[in-house]
């Protein structure tokens, strides 16, 4: 089998300890790091994410695959930087204040990093102001918010309002996500986008960056 397909398949099968070895092998076979990333690691994680959404697999499978993806990414990152692959954009990411759920947010971070974004992960339980401060301080053009609790979703609205109050609307875009968060909610609070899973989040962030700045 094509080594890149093998990488994707090993992620799908949850053989996280094989991923790094396969990535090394692909590099020895002179595959381009960017190809290994896109057609190997990301292709595999896309399948894993889709299977999880349909509950054909469960959270442990996703966590194992994410570990494999990390191991592969660690090997590729310095090479991608060397090759001068430009950053796809800078994003500040976190779970909102009051919300300790971070598994989904971490997956979004992995996929964004994989897609070449410069991700500043603020962690969980992050107050509205910290998101906006960090975006300003680090020149990020996108703020990514994750919430898994209906009680913390209103913090997303606070962030959107703060971005407006500081006159950053348009220059700093806000994308929201998390299980209870919907496209309708994003519209209601005036966020710029909603991502329904990690792969979709990457697409939406890419579109935001392309449309903005």
């Amino acid at each position, binding site marked *: 089998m094509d080594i890149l397909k093998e990488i994707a398949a090993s992620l799908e099968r949850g053989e996280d300890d094989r991923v790094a070895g396969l990535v090394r092998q692909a590099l020895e076979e002179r595959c381009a790091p960017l190809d290994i990333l896109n057609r190997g690691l990301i292709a595999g994680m896309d399948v894993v994410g889709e299977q999880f959404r*349909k*509950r*054909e*697999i*469960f*959270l*442990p*499978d996703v*966590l*194992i695959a994410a570990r494999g993806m990390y191991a592969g990414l660690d090997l590729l990152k310095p090479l991608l930087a060397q090759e001068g692959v430009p950053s796809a954009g800078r994003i500040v990411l976190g779970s909102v*204040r*009051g919300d*300790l759920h971070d*598994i989904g947010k971490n997956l979004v971070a992995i996929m964004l990093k994989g897609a070449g974004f410069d991700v500043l992960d603020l962690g969980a*339980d992050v107050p509205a102001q910290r998101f906006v401060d960090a975006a300003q301080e680090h020149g990020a053009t996108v703020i990514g918010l994750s919430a898994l609790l*209906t*009680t*913390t*979703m*209103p*913090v997303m*609205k606070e962030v959107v309002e703060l971005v407006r109050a500081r006159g950053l609307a348009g220059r700093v875009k806000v994308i929201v996500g998390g299980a*209870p968060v*919907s496209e*309708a*909610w994003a519209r*209601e*609070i005036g966020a710029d986008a909603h991502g329904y899973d990690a792969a979709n989040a990457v697409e939406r962030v890419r579109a935001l960056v392309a449309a903005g700045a």
Partner: protein
Amino acid sequence: MKSLLERLAAGEVLIGDGAWGTLLMTRGLEPGEAPEVLNRSRPEVLEEIARLYLEAGADLITTNSFGGSPARLRRYGLDGQTEEINRAAVAAVRRAVGGRAFVSASVGPSGHVLKPYGDGDPAEIGAGFERQIRALAEAGADLVCIETMIDLAEAVLAVRAARAVAPALPVMATMTFERSRRGFFTVMGASVEQAARELGEAGADILGSNCGNGSEVMVEVAREFRAHTTRPIAIQPNAGLPEPRGGETVYPETPEFMAEQAKALVLAGVGIVGGCCGTTPEHVRALRAAVA
């Protein structure tokens, strides 16, 4: 007073209470604050909520100790106060209800995903549950209520901990399931059948499900439990699944709707019917009337 297990064995249907979080928030709990802090700072609030549910007709009143395991409290730098926090949770409910209801000592997930999928060390988490449950038992809880579990391995750790440090207390263990095309599973992948078997083997006296589903779907979960266990079943649904409306979130199921479903739950063989997220004293009152 007849014991909890005797009453269930005699075929009596008992009523659990409803959500605490929302009532705590309207009484000053800040988002991001550990709800268990109030056990020591404002126990009168807990007594008030316990009384509301008692007056609504609940037979079991839950303690505010869901996040009272040291692993969970550590996130707030409160693990050193594990004993005090859990004892205060039981004491407040006991003061409010006396002997008129069972004090159901809540034990929720540790907040860590267990190894090998996450960083949680099973021995440490099990020891943490023992520490929490010992305090709850010493303060006079009537039963241990292990709830909202998604990882069967962690739920089993909690049940074993209860059996080890509080052998005299009945243990209720309920998990949160999602419906998929292949049936009901927790997000970590445990089926109802596996849960019924392993929780039973670990020594849980009462099995079932709470949270994650509205009352209609819970009727199906209950039937599946009935097919796989002979032990009493406890079901505590959400008031439906939350919907965002006008910048706020609303739980759609009315007390009347839940009361109708409660009858179906009883027909399915459920012995304890209560509520989880989104349920109120009004819901509990309607449940009481429906199964009276």
